[in-house]
């Protein structure tokens, strides 16, 4: 019966507001707004937008996997110094506001950025050789920057717990390295790879800030078009029609995913990370690990470090603590000023609730889905349900935000709505982290336990939970990062009193001119990075019983 809990949650906080906004938008005066749909089909611009939305997401996903998989291999195989911290840092980009990240990219890659200055002085060129401003390249780069961690966490985490027995057996039987990779390792990794692909695709499919800010106004996706129609032109019927189109695509992708997923799922053997992770020994291994660490430093850490540095440099180019010292100062005596510590506490509180709620809901859903039977009816139900669970990731934040206004307006001033909205976005991540592991647990383990007299509850506690614990921790970390970085939905929920979060506070500083304003925004972003990395390291320390780092 427990699996009804996530379904009730979805029905109340996702489906109901969505239906309400569609109802209001498409039947404005009790009549179906046919014109909106006609306009949609008549204008080639919309079809171009749909096409661009799909191919940029596909390309972004492919590139992220390409860049991320070697990193996942390294994290899935080796112990090395700074491993935990590096892993936490690769996740930090996930929470950073786009305007701030854009500034960091520009400091490094912009016309007068570090790289161009270096190249210009080396090559003695007049004009900067790298011109990425407002280009597709910058969109792709930013998508890799944001989503790299999804590959590391989901594929790397899965890999680390994958038993090496089959690979060793294949090698003993004479298969060379490439054959082992193709015929043994990749098929075993399949479920995790597919889950990561799906998450990244959906995330880039609904990308908003990256497209608008880094891509510039020439690019538009379904998400930015929905925003434009709803917020600027106030054409709710068109926005609703585009949202439905977005949902239909997301749903189609999900159905394809469940189809493939079923074909590649096979029982696997899992091991504790104490058994699988090795120290770096040979020269080849050292080169591999070093190359990946260098890549992560350049791709992920350099922009973050540029921001940290920026938060300590004054307008005169000299070191200053002014931005940090000014954070608690309320120059205007404004009633809406919130002390930085209070903002950090707010963010952490919402994140803690989100972690608990999203992990619980995600785990319940995953368990239910993993126990899908082989009979046609239950399988179809599970496939349908799985697709539904992922929809929150594929629906425009603006649409859902307006849905909340229409359907749950009376709840809007309630603070609890913030972690609820965060959980809605976070729990698909938990499902995708846990499900590949749960599905991989061979039935013989459960059967053996049952034959030996264990009750179903005990099987779950003593077989499933220890094996899936590590994946649950990964899911909890995603829930934490989603909550820490969430901006769109949070900004829609009214914030009476002092309930603002770090991203909202950063956005407030960015809204006014003055060197101090931007400095404070960057200083607060640095604090966000630290809090996020600290929180991730804390969650990472979580252990289930004495199983060790599973």
């Amino acid at each position: 019966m427990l699996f009804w809990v996530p379904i009730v949650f979805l029905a109340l906080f996702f489906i109901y507001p969505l239906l309400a906004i569609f109802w209001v938008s498409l039947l404005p005066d009790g009549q179906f707004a046919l014109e909106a749909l006609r306009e949609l089909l008549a204008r080639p611009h919309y079809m171009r937008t749909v096409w661009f939305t799909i191919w940029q997401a596909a390309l972004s996903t492919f590139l992220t996997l390409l860049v991320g998989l070697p990193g996942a291999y390294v994290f899935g195989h080796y112990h090395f110094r700074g491993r935990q911290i590096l892993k936490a840092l690769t996740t930090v980009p996930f929470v950073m506001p786009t305007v701030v990240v854009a500034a960091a990219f520009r400091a490094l890659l912009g016309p007068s950025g570090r790289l161009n200055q270096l190249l210009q002085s080396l090559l003695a060129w007049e004009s900067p050789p790298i011109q990425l401003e407002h280009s597709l390249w910058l969109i792709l780069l930013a998508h890799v920057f944001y989503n790299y961690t999804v590959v590391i966490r989901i594929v790397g985490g899965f890999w680390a717990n994958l038993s090496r027995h089959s690979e060793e057996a294949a090698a003993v039987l004479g298969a060379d390295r490439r054959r082992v990779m193709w015929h043994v390792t990749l098929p075993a990794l399949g479920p995790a790879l597919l889950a990561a692909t799906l998450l990244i695709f959906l995330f880039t499919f609904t990308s908003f800030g990256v497209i608008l800010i880094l891509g510039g106004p020439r690019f538009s996706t379904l998400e930015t078009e929905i925003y434009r129609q709803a917020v600027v032109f106030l054409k709710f019927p068109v926005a609703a029609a585009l949202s439905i189109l977005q949902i239909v695509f997301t749903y189609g992708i999900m159905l394809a995913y469940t189809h493939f997923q079923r074909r590649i799922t096979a029982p696997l053997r899992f091991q504790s990370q104490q058994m699988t992770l090795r120290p770096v020994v040979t020269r080849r291994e050292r080169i591999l690990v070093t190359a990946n660490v260098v890549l992560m430093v350049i791709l992920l850490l350099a922009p973050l470090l540029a921001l940290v540095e920026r938060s300590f440099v004054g307008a005169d180019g000299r070191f200053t603590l002014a931005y940090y010292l000014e954070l608690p100062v309320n120059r205007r005596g404004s009633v809406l000023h919130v002390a930085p510590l209070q903002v950090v506490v707010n963010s952490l509180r919402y994140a803690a609730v989100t972690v608990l709620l999203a992990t619980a809901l995600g785990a319940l859903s995953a368990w239910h889905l993993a126990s899908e039977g082989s009979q046609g009816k239950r399988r179809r139900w599970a496939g349908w349900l799985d697709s539904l669970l992922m929809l929150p990731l594929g629906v425009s934040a603006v649409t859902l935000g307006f849905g909340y206004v229409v359907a749950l307006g009376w709840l809007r001033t309630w603070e609890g709505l913030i972690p609820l909205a965060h959980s809605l976005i976070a729990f698909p991540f938990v499902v995708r982290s846990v499900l590949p592991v749960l599905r991989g647990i061979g039935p013989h383990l459960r059967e053996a336990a049952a034959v030996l007299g264990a009750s179903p509850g005990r099987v779950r506690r003593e077989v499933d939970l220890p094996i899936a614990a590590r994946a649950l921790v990964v899911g909890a970390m995603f829930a934490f990062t989603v909550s820490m970085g969430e901006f769109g939905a949070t900004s829609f929920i009214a914030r009476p009193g002092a309930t603002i979060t770090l991203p909202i506070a950063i956005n407030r500083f960015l809204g006014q001119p003055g060197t101090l304003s931007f400095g404070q925004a960057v200083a607060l972003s640095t604090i966000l990075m630290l809090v996020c990395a600290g929180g991730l390291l804390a969650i990472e320390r979580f252990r289930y019983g004495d199983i060790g780092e599973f």
Partner: protein
Amino acid sequence: MTMKRWIWIPVLVLLVSCGQSGQNTVRLMTHDSFSVSAELLQSFEEEEGIRVVLLPSGDAGAVLNQAILSKGNPLADVFFGVDNAFLSRALAAELFEPYHSPRLTEIPDGLQLDPEYRLLPVDYGDVCLNYDKAWFAQRNLAPPANLEDLIRPEYAGLLVVENPATSSPGLAFLLATIGHLGTGGYLDYWAKLRANDVLVADGWEEAYWGHFTAASDGTRPVVVSYASSPPAEVFYSETPLEEAPTAAIVADGSCFRQIEFVGILKGTKQRAAARALVDFMLGWRFQEEIPLQMFMFPANLNAVLPEVFALYAAVPQQTAEVDPIDIEVHREEWIEAWTEVVLR
């Protein structure tokens, strides 16, 4: 079995949310740029015996949408932040009830755009071009003096504007060119700006913090911002400044005046308190706070400007005018035509 507790979440949600608004509480729905000093708000609350709940709910466009969607079952009693670009839309949606505040006598007629007193002017700000003083001084180049200068070859590649389809100052600047050059001339002007390598950013934050030379690593010394941005640069400087690093171009017809309005939402159950709040927002004490709290100019003629505004803010003599009804009828068409000429 402990997991079963989760079942209670929806029930809890329902329970907690019941019985929220009490007597004499007035809710003010507004955008994220709204601000008032804690001291002043508290003294208002004590004098009138009214509790004010502030509901900042996103940027100006998003907040108006929320008000329209929740029409008939309003989320608040008073709404602040409709500007003249969306005035007709807000009035057409019949969101507001009329209130002829006694304070209106202190507010110039030119700002009162609604003859039926449903939306009352609170403040205004002029969207103007800003330039980086040091950048032009270093190059011995005279800064552009008006809109026409920007299509001259010596100013090629210097301007960054915001996309009118995603940004409110972007839309205001488009309206400035329409008001100044007429519906027959603005597209031609924009085509020339495009030929002169104008850069389009999605919003003010990105234009200012991403591309404006005075505030970023960017390459554009001229940006669309507010006439009040130079004093804000001084006020929010990390080191005390003698002089503003930027200046606004306020030649006749080169700026568009954004006027922000307040209104009482239809269906309020706190009419008396809502009216008191509106009177308070139009009165001199609140009005004198507006410049430093929101970096706009007070609508009330009796409000005295703070020193930093008196010293560093330029006020255009004559702004470009576009009738709110025309804006409502043609907004989308103008934006689409602009997009066609500048972006495609």
